[in-house]
């Protein structure tokens, strides 16, 4: 133990905590020191600011959609406006919020520290990826300002290539560029995990957060380029009229569907896997216990990444894929559901015989487990071939992916932001307010999206501007829920902002967590570690932490 404690920076205990004099935030000053930084932590902060911005723009569109659906009549806005609203809601939320949400912010901030490295392998490429993201975001805003785009986020051909007069090419370019941002992030993570681990940090000593990011990065690196080339072909088809997807020239629009979903299905795992990582960390920390079945959880992430590439055609069951390929893809879909089930149960059993406390991140994580279980199970509904016929393209599928993406991923994101907020800023968020926000979000979320399952089974199609009056009651419920949900999302924005200046000083390890990131000062130094640590313990080894603390006290005393 003595070897370990000497390699890790010793800092005073929490009650007497003061903000460290020198950290990555105050190391350099001025706007340029941020815009030209190579520091993964600063880039993470840049990402955090930009994705929050886009989240609230996307959220504004969601609000407008729900407001329009308050009444069955198309009365708030014109059809085209409504179509642009949900298209931009989808494009912004998926490509500019969910895909980079956890990896580019928390992942960027934490992966090098968790591995005991000073930075990601390619700091400049990391910065480049933020600029690419920004260019993508700006182009999306340009498409929005110039008049919007109404393809839906799926860019279905031939609608997107031949039948719309909106800014499809601008939006496609935006996504193309934002895609390269996520490719570079993924590439950076993979290389960092392979080449930058500290001495003693073996693969099976890595925190599960790193495992799930590794799996997500593989998907980013292999999946995103296929989307890129698909969008290039769509843009070429619109501009010069090549005929790869155009049925009138002999092309096949179903080929577009195959190529698009070849990325876009793995993309949902790109979005959710990092969330899994956050949940593993949070659950373990607040039950003060190693994650139940570490290896199973780690490998289930990898299994999801592998199977995730072979299920894309389940988005096309009613589109006339051959019956036999439908069978194969349905079977594989069932198989990909299993690793997620394993994770859920492993997390639940992590609690067993723990010593559980209920800080805000833990509440969000509980919310995640509940909502993701529902989201995952309804995914099995949709993976079942015959069931999919009735449910697909209705509000059922809308509710399903919002349960997974918003109920799952956004909960995980907020859990992670709260959990690592002390590490990122050096200050605590206000605990009772944030608990209120977590509960509000959970209630608002269920109120918004549970009625949509019923609506979907009743047959209300998605992307409808107006609907038959008998669906109104459930839509009103959903809109009411969305209001609550909106409040739930605005609260963290306010109190986290407040805590930047007035929050209690956090100290190094306010949660007494085991990760390497908690053994250094908060906020960390620019170079993370004064000396690279030598890792001689497993992840989530609370005994090691306890021993270390004891040693520290003796050293200090």
């Amino acid at each position, binding site marked *: 133990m003595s070897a370990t404690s000497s390699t890790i920076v010793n800092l005073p205990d929490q009650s007497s905590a003061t903000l460290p004099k*020198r950290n990555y935030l105050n*190391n*350099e000053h001025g706007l340029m020191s941020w815009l030209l930084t*190579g520091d993964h932590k600063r880039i993470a902060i840049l990402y955090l600011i930009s994705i929050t911005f886009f989240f609230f723009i996307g959220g504004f569109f969601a609000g407008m959609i729900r407001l329009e659906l308050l009444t069955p009549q198309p009365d708030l806005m014109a059809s085209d406006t409504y179509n642009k609203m949900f298209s931009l809601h989808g494009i912004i939320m998926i490509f500019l919020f969910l895909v980079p949400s956890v990896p580019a912010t928390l992942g960027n901030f934490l992966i*090098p520290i968790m591995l005991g*490295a*000073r*930075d990601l*392998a*390619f*700091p*400049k*490429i990391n910065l480049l990826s933020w600029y690419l993201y920004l260019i993508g975001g700006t182009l999306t805003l340009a498409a929005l300002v110039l008049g919007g785009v109404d393809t839906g986020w799926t860019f279905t051909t031939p609608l997107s290539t031949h039948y719309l007069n909106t800014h499809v090419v601008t939006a496609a370019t935006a996504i193309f560029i934002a895609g390269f941002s996520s*490719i570079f992030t993924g*590439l*950076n993570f*993979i*290389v*960092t995990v*392979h*080449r*930058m*681990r*500290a*001495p*003693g*940090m*073996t693969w099976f000593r890595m925190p599960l957060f790193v495992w799930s990011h590794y799996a997500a990065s593989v998907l980013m*690196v*292999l*999946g*995103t*380029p*296929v989307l*890129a*080339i*698909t969008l*290039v*072909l769509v843009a*070429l088809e619109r501009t*010069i*009229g*090549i*005929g*790869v997807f155009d049925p009138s*020239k*002999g*092309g*096949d629009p179903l*080929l577009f569907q195959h*190529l698009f979903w*070849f990325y876009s299905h793995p993309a949902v795992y790109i979005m959710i896997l990092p969330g899994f990582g956050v949940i593993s960390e949070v659950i373990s920390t607040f039950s003060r216990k190693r994650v139940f079945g570490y290896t199973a959880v780690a490998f289930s992430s990898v299994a999801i990444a592998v199977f995730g590439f072979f299920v894309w055609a389940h988005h096309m069951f009613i589109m006339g894929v051959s019956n036999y390929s439908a069978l194969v893809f349905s079977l594989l879909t069932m198989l990909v559901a299993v690793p997620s089930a394993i994770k859920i149960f492993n997390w639940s059993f992590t609690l067993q015989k723990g010593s559980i406390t209920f800080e805000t991140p833990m509440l969000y994580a509980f919310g995640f487990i509940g909502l993701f279980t529902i989201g995952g199970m309804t995914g099995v509904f949709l993976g079942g071939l015959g069931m999919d016929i009735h449910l697909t393209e209705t509000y059922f599928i809308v509710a399903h992916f919002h349960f997974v993406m918003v109920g799952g991923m956004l909960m995980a994101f907020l859990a992670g932001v709260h959990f690592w907020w002390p590490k990122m800023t050096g200050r605590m968020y206000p605990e009772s307010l944030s608990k209120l926000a977590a509960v509000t979000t959970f209630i608002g979320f269920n109120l918004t999206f549970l009625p949509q399952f019923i609506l979907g089974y009743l047959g209300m199609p998605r992307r409808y501007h107006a609907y038959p009056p008998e669906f109104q009651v459930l839509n009103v419920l959903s809109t009411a829920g969305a209001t609550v949900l909106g409040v739930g999302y605005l609260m963290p924005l306010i109190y986290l902002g407040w805590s930047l200046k007035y929050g209690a000083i956090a100290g190094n390890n306010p949660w007494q967590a085991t990760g390497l990131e908690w053994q250094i000062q908060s906020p960390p130094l*620019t*170079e993370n570690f*004064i*000396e*690279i640590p*030598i890792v001689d313990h497993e992840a989530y080894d609370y005994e090691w932490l306890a021993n270390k603390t004891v040693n520290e006290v003796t050293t200090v005393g």
Partner: protein
Amino acid sequence: MDNTAAVAHPREAVGLEEHTEHTFLPQHRHHFETEAQQREAGTFGMWLFLLTEIMFFGGLFFAYLLYRNWYYPAFAVASNQLSVPLGGANTVILITSGFCMALGVWAAEVRNKGFLVIMLILTTFFGLCFLGVKYVEYHEKWEKHHIPGPSFDISEFVNPAAHGITNEKPLPVDAAERTQVFFSLYFAMTGMHAVHMIIGICLLFWLTHRAYRGDFTTGYVAPIENFGLYWHFVDIVWLFLFPLLYLINRHPLH
């Protein structure tokens, strides 16, 4: 493996002050423990990037295989429109360019600045030659209205005799229209390849400039090596494109 390497590396006792200096003058290497680690990371990253590129072109190759299977006669006839001598010349040019690049990497490794600069210039020159030949080929397609779009013209496939083509049987109109799919893919694939060439040539100008300044002949060869990988990858893509587009559907010229 890399763990042990990192452990074996003697840790220098770096004082706090020195580190402050490092962060004020950020050299992008300072976060690596060792030179070897940085080099390995760079190469590994480059290979991963090439994997990404394979997936990028993979989408196009998949589309090509699908349509070739569906519209075989149209693909066969349309592929006869491409000039094997020009394509073959381009293949030779590109391989020569790749060979120069390989020599350039070697020159950087043996720290021979003059030879490196010459090789980079030659690589650029052959790359430009390739694009020039490509331009000639594209121009011919433009003249013949074989660029997909509203002005695409199938008369040459429907009635080859009228265009002075004697070794080709006329295609029925519906099959002839499928040649547009071939040319769509031809332009998409070679166009994407050409875009990669252009990006490569831009990088080459920059690398030549830096090589001339002597940046790469003091033992720091990673940019040259990694660019070499990229350039060879672009060559290899062409080595797939050339047979797929120019050769395999070609029927014997009688």
